[in-house]
């Protein structure tokens, strides 16, 4: 039950190659192993992405992605039992190039034992003003079904619409600028059917008890990002990015990301990056409510808490020459490692007992993210 997992995919991010309008992306296949390990959660699995052009006007792409989840997160440890589950996702996409426009359609299906999501997307990308400007408009629609393990009577739905606009501008011979806007509107069952909030209860031995979370059935969020990428004279690239986010639940987020890319020799490319993220929590979030049914909406999901995260990452890519694989024009083996730190300002660590409710230390954790993938151009 990992609702957020599906949102990124409904935007068809997996299928939208970072190509410029007026030219379709190269024929390419990627096979990846990914691993996330942190906060008592381990998620790994494969991902495969293939893109192929036809007659320089059409392109198709397909993505297969798996998450194998083994969770003993702090929520699970304090209010439920550790579990394992699997999520499989299939995406298909098509592109049509006409003049300086690219028309794209995509479809994604994702299934796990208590959640199914389907999303369809369309977009148009247009080069203009002497090919210095590229404008892309996109829309996607998602239909999700939510279930609850061990409760056959529970079933609910979630509808999603995502509107996006991206503008890329060539500023100088060495500088490219980007502006992205996206609005996400959702209606339906938005909370996690397993998660609880806690409230003060003098009758309980621990001083508090739990009740189920209650979320609004609608949410609308807006995100705006500006970014710039600069080519440096010794053949390297530096990028800076800022993203602002605000939604109808009161979540306000800021993201700053810096990255640097350095080729070395003919075969190596190295990357380094740093990302800082902070958010104000949702209006109806509280680590500890004063009593049961304290207000209409109740949340204690740490993703809706006031928090900060930092990510520092490195990457290396090496171009291989494989004997007997002449049909491949180029092959690379790639490794990426990211170290993430999460700090919560109003989500307490309930593994600490024997202290008055509301005085437990604030929770924090770190995570390791590993990606190993092979890419082949054909």
């Amino acid at each position, binding site marked *: 039950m990992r609702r957020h997992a599906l949102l990124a995919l409904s935007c068809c991010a997996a299928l939208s*190659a970072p190509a410029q309008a007026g030219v379709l992306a190269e024929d390419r296949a990627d096979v990846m192993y990914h691993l996330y390990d942190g906060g008592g959660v381990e998620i790994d699995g494969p991902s495969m992405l293939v893109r192929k052009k036809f007659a320089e006007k059409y392109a198709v792409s397909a993505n297969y992605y798996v998450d194998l989840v083994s969770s003993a997160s702090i929520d699970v440890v304090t209010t439920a039992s550790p579990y394992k589950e699997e999520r499989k996702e299939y995406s298909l996409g098509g592109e049509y190039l006409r003049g300086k426009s690219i028309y794209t359609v995509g479809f994604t299906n994702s299934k796990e034992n208590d959640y199914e999501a389907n999303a369809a997307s369309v977009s148009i990308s247009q080069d203009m003003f002497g*090919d210095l400007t*590229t404008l892309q408009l996109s829309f996607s629609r998602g239909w999700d079904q939510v279930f609850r393990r061990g409760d056959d009577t529970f079933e609910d739905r979630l509808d999603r619409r995502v509107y996006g606009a991206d503008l890329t501008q060539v500023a100088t011979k060495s500088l490219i600028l980007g502006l*992205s806007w996206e609005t996400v509107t959702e209606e339906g069952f938005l909370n996690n059917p397993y998660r609880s909030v806690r409230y003060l209860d003098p009758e309980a031995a621990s001083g508090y008890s739990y009740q189920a979370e209650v979320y609004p059935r609608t949410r609308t969020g807006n*995100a705006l990002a500006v970014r710039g990428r600069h080519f440096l004279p010794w053949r390297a690239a530096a990028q800076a990015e800022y*993203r602002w986010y605000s939604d109808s639940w009161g979540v306000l987020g800021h993201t700053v990301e810096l990255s640097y890319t350095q080729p070395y020799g003919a075969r190596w490319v190295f990357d380094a990056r740093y990302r800082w993220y902070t958010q104000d929590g949702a209006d109806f979030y509280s680590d500890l409510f004063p009593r049961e049914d304290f207000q209409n909406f109740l949340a204690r999901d740490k993703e809706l808490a006031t928090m900060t995260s930092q990510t520092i990452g490195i990457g290396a890519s090496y171009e291989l020459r494989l004997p007997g694989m002449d049909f491949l024009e180029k092959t690379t083996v790639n490794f990426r490692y990211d170290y*993430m730190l999460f700090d919560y300002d109003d989500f307490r660590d309930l593994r600490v007992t024997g202290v008055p409710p509301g005085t437990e230390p604030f929770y924090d954790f770190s995570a390791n993210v590993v990606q190993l993938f092979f890419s082949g151009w054909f």
Partner: protein
Amino acid sequence: MKNLRPALWLAIALGTAGCGPVEPWVKPYERERLADPIMSWDRDPVSASYMKHVYESREGSRGAMGGAGGGCGCN
């Protein structure tokens, strides 16, 4: 009204100036650096998509995480 006339003409002149053909200030043959693969917003789509998934699964913010288009017109 007479005093406003120069301002009106100036506004019309400035307003219509944008309707003419735009002369690219970076010519196609000057885009070698922009066409370098290291200038892609996301050089490896399979990796960029995965990292978006990692962030959006653990943070409250959603959207506007990708850069679309390159605009270098290098085909």
